């Protein structure tokens, strides 16, 4: 009887111990709805095979809802999320506020020195890496080579704005439904203002001077807006003020945009014969410049970060190391091909001959390397960020300015009126926020 009791007690103790060893940690990952993130969710079997003790719960939300929920959670120390998908805009702001856990202690196989310097720079605050890039992008020009040939022009790999304007004029054939240039016109800080801010950088314009005084009343912005409105009015598609990333991509896939400036990430779709019958005719070029030393290309990365309020930081770091490691890129390549590997994060990816052979690989890396978030404009600026200004007030302000500029493009106000309105609004907002004393 005693023996039986002892055996039972021993078995119970063993079970309890093994239970503790196998205890599952659940982490909640808040993410956005984009192709690369969806692909990662489909590859989770690999993660579970390597880390059976960690369970991942996904919360997929629209970008702006995610931003609001995550901000509320972090600000109140809620701890509902363990891993966040955040953009380059938030990392410097949240890192500075102490809302994010430093990722400086990720294992050696993470190989932090392999991260692209421009991307790493945008995610580092005071020497601390606060987010690990999952996918990075810049912007460039894509055009139809057959139409350029027909018009008797060549677009260089390093075009100027004058070249772009001339090419747009030469390739426009409205009767045939071909529009010389497609640019973002839809209002929003991540839509028309992302593009216009980069265009402004290349024209020598800037959002604010060193004393945070808005600069829309300067001649450089007048030149930007005049050329932008003129190009889209003369050579753009009808209703350009309603067109954002997706609308212009669709027009390009249908062959209706002779030329387009947008995210490098769309290169995969444009060169995919399943998605476009003009896939074999696509040419790429760097974003244009105006001879002032800055090109109109942006820099963005969706990155994974751990909020300071998470109570599963170690498991979260394990997940981030898996999702943003070089091995993950190889995993995607083995399952879905190199063209579907999340681009723009690691130097080694671009050194890989198979990836380098893709038609857009070199221009993507050149575009990313040409962007400098800490020194984005020709003139000195007090902020970080290429197509945005990394201050909390920017998203709201830029969306309002975007609406004003979109109205100018739609012909509801003149360029001068739009710029004056943008200047007055920005001065008011920046004064209220305490930047202008």
């Amino acid at each position, binding site marked *: 009887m005693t023996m039986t009791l002892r055996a039972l007690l021993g078995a119970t103790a063993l079970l309890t111990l093994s239970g503790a060893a196998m205890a599952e940690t659940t982490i909640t990952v808040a993410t956005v709805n984009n192709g690369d993130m969806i692909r990662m969710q489909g590859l989770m079997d690999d993660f579970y095979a390597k880390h059976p003790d960690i369970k991942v719960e996904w*919360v997929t939300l629209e970008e702006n809802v995610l931003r609001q929920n995550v901000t509320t959670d972090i600000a109140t120390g809620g701890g509902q999320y363990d891993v966040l998908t955040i953009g380059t805009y938030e990392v410097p702001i949240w890192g500075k506020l102490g809302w994010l856990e430093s990722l400086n202690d990720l294992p050696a196989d993470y190989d932090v020195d392999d991260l692209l310097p421009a991307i790493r720079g945008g995610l580092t605050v005071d020497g601390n890496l606060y987010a690990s890039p999952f996918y990075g992008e810049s912007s460039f020009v894509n055009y139809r080579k057959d139409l350029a040939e027909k018009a008797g022009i060549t677009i260089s790999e390093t075009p100027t704005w004058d070249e772009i304007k001339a090419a747009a004029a030469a390739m426009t054939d409205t009767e045939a439904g071909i529009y010389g240039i497609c640019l973002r016109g839809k209002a929003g800080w991540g839509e028309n203002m992302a593009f216009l801010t980069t265009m402004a950088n290349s024209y020598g314009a800037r959002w604010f001077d060193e004393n945070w005084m808005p600069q829309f009343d300067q001649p450089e912005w007048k030149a930007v807006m005049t050329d932008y409105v003129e190009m889209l009015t003369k050579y753009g598609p009808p209703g350009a003020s309603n067109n954002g990333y997706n609308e212009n991509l669709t027009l390009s896939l249908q062959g209706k945009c002779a030329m387009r400036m947008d995210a490098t990430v769309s290169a995969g779709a444009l060169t995919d014969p399943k998605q476009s019958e003009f896939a074999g005719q696509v040419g790429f070029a760097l974003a244009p410049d105006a001879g002032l030393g800055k090109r109109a290309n942006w820099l963005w990365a969706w990155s994974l970060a751990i909020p300071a309020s998470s109570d599963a930081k170690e498991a979260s770091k394990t997940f981030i190391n898996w999702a943003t490691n070089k091995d993950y890129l190889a995993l995607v390549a083995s399952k879905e091909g190199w063209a579907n590997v999340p681009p723009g994060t690691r130097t080694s990816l671009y050194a890989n001959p198979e990836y380098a052979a893709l038609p857009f690989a070199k221009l993507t890396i050149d575009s990313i390397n040409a962007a400098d978030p800490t020194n984005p404009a020709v003139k000195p600026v007090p902020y970080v960020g290429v197509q945005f200004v990394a201050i909390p007030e920017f998203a709201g302000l830029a969306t309002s300015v975007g609406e004003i500029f979109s109205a100018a493009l739609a012909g509801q106000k003149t360029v001068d009126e739009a710029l004056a309105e943008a200047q007055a609004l920005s001065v008011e907002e920046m004064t209220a926020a305490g930047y202008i004393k």
Partner: protein
Amino acid sequence: MARKVSTRRKLAFTAAAWAVALIIFFPVLWTILTSFKTEASAVASPPEFLGADWTLENYVEVWGRSDYPRFFWNSVVISVGSTLLGLLIAIPAAWSMAFVPGKRTKDLLMWMLSTKMMPAAAVLIPMYLLFQWTGLFDTRIGLVLALMLMNLPVIVWMLYTYFKEIPGEILEAARMDGANLRNEIIYVLTPMAIPGIASTMLLNIILAWNEAFWTITLTTVDAAPLSAFIASFSAPQGLFYAKLSAASTMAIAPILILGWFSQKQLVRGLTFGAVK
């Protein structure tokens, strides 16, 4: 002659009613149609209709990528639960306001309704903290309570309007026959107000089903209802329109069907007391 004009008028009114109905229904119809198109076809310019590429792929992918039954069940529990709990509180409240009004009853009703005028975002942080501290975050019971409180003014107001239509003499007669308060409410008032209670219930289920601010803000995984399901397929750049439309169609289908079958009650409820 007079009859002819009347027929013409009738026809004109019918045509106008159909036109208005179509305009109102068009966004829903377009969402449903888009859900059966390919992504390229969904955003084609000009919009495609007859020549579109039709597919069921979006539904297959949306179903495969998310746990629809869990979201659906959460929506059912939250919307029905909050409505039933709301009715339980609102019926006695509306009874007292309708049949035993005090000096401040009208003010009280107005004050209750005024809480609906406050923007939800104004109480976001206090609500969030309250839910965190009480452990109600991401729980169905938490959302049942939140939505019940949110819709309670509407429920009380609607029931108050219906109860006011019932002659007080009938209740008096019941009292004279020896009915106590409980029996008066359960056996006399409630059966007479059944149509009003039913339409209040339906309307509140619809309101709770469609609520998106709190249901997305106060949940992550376990209690997330269909509003969060739709949000997970949305992207600000307009990517994946077709899949988003498929997710939206799957989310609104149950409530559309419920609305369709109960439209008589709903219309009666919404127009009750309108023409007097």
